[in-house]
């Protein structure tokens, strides 16, 4: 019991001491996850819409594949992109390995299936007459899709929140592609992993509590946006 209460206390101290290292880790976590989720939305939302609206051969197979991708371990994503970004790999000349950009790329790959799946589920659940109505009113397919997105905007928001949660809480991709470099690619989760490996369990757990607080603030903020 001591262990948990100590951690809680240490978390409170951490938050209010404005420790520079912790701030940097929070900031790295936040901006990589945010950029990743924005990029994932750019790819994932259209994929979800497309799979939800179009009927074609192999669609069910594609949906099954997409569902399977959600089960992809983060370490595997890390491994695949590691091979791509390493100096030996096809993108090696850009020297992206162990930079925030590599982390963002990995987190984006992680988030796309989640976003696409959520959007797909929304489209399936939505009243698809919106599309037909818009079309009969002279809208192009693109304009009609925009209309549908407006209709299911809460669902899309939920998709982004789910993706964000997955990305900011994962450790495999950040560790493999970022390298846990102090002041550069150290995120909240890799910092927790590091503290755990040093046996600083209380400090690690208190970082976990800080991470949850940050996630709470982000969700409160998004919730506020939804209310408007």
């Amino acid at each position, binding site marked *: 019991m001591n262990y948990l209460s100590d951690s809680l206390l240490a978390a409170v101290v951490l938050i209010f001491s404005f420790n520079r290292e912790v701030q940097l880790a929070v900031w790295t976590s936040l901006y990589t996850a*945010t950029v990743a989720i924005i990029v994932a939305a750019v790819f994932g939302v259209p994929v979800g819409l497309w799979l939800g609206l179009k009927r074609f051969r192999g669609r069910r197979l594609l949906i099954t594949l997409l569902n399977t991708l959600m089960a992809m371990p983060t370490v595997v994503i890390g491994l695949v992109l590691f091979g791509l970004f390493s*100096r030996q790999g096809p993108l090696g000349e850009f020297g992206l390995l*162990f930079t*925030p950009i590599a982390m963002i790329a990995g987190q984006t790959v992680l988030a796309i299936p989640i976003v696409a799946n959520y959007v797909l589920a929304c489209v399936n659940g939505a009243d698809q007459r919106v599309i037909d109505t818009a079309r009969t009113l002279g809208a192009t397919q693109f304009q009609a899709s925009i209309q549908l997105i407006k209709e299911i905007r809460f669902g899309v928001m939920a998709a982004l929140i789910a993706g964000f949660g997955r990305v900011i809480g994962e450790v495999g991709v950040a560790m493999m592609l970022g390298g*846990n470099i102090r*002041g550069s690619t150290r995120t909240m989760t890799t910092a927790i992993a590091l503290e755990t*490996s*040093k*046996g600083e369990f209380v400090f690690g757990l208190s970082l976990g509590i800080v991470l949850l607080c940050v996630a709470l603030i982000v969700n409160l903020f998004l919730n506020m946006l939804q209310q408007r």
Partner: protein
Amino acid sequence: MLRLFSILLAVVFMCGLFSPVVAAERLRLATTTSTEASGLLAELLPPFEQANDCKVDVIAVGTGKALKLGESGDVDVVLVHARSLEDQFMAHGYGSDRRDVMYNDFVLLGPPHDPAEALGTNDLVEVMSKIANSKVSFISRGDESGTHVRELQLWQAAGLVPQGSWYLEAGRGMGEVIIMANERQGYTLSDRGTYLAFKDKVDLKMVFAGDQRLFNPYGVIMVNPARHPHVKQDLARKFLDFLTSEEGQGLINGFQMAGEQLFYTQ
């Protein structure tokens, strides 16, 4: 309003994204968990960074992986401790310059009641056999780290092939393995530095130390620029010079944890 806000947010994030790139020159160092977790690098790097207006990015992994990163050119320098692997690395031409930096030693740790009766034995080979025969858990790093490589050499020296339910290959870092050994009340091999860092957190005892086969030298290697032209060779050479300079060696000798010196220079 929402759009304006998101654009603003995007701009702020982009600034955060690219600001580290335009900052000072960066040197990539792959090293073992022992140098990072002990706090030595936190002591050693800032003077070098200041003097050369650069930043050293530390990627702390096991020796095996650190050398792999050097081999593929993903880092500029490696600081590791497994002489046999280092020599192979140099022989294959992956490194262009290797220097001795410092040393400490490995120690055998075990539970306080010492069920294998390792304590008081003067011979390393005998200790290893006692542990193997007692069938008390032995936690191996199992990750091709410098410590793991040395542990395998020790079993070999004792003419033993460690296998069976008592021999647990953890595949984790030194700290985690010490914690595991503590929880399972088993034996393990650790570098002295990590053991000292964990001394107050576990009740494992040092059961054997001081054999020359437990000598643990660290070497720094510059990744061969002939193989990987992007390697920052000037900065890398300065780093090697710094570690072996009077200033660098002084910092290493002066580094203490819990009142004990962790690393020694020649």
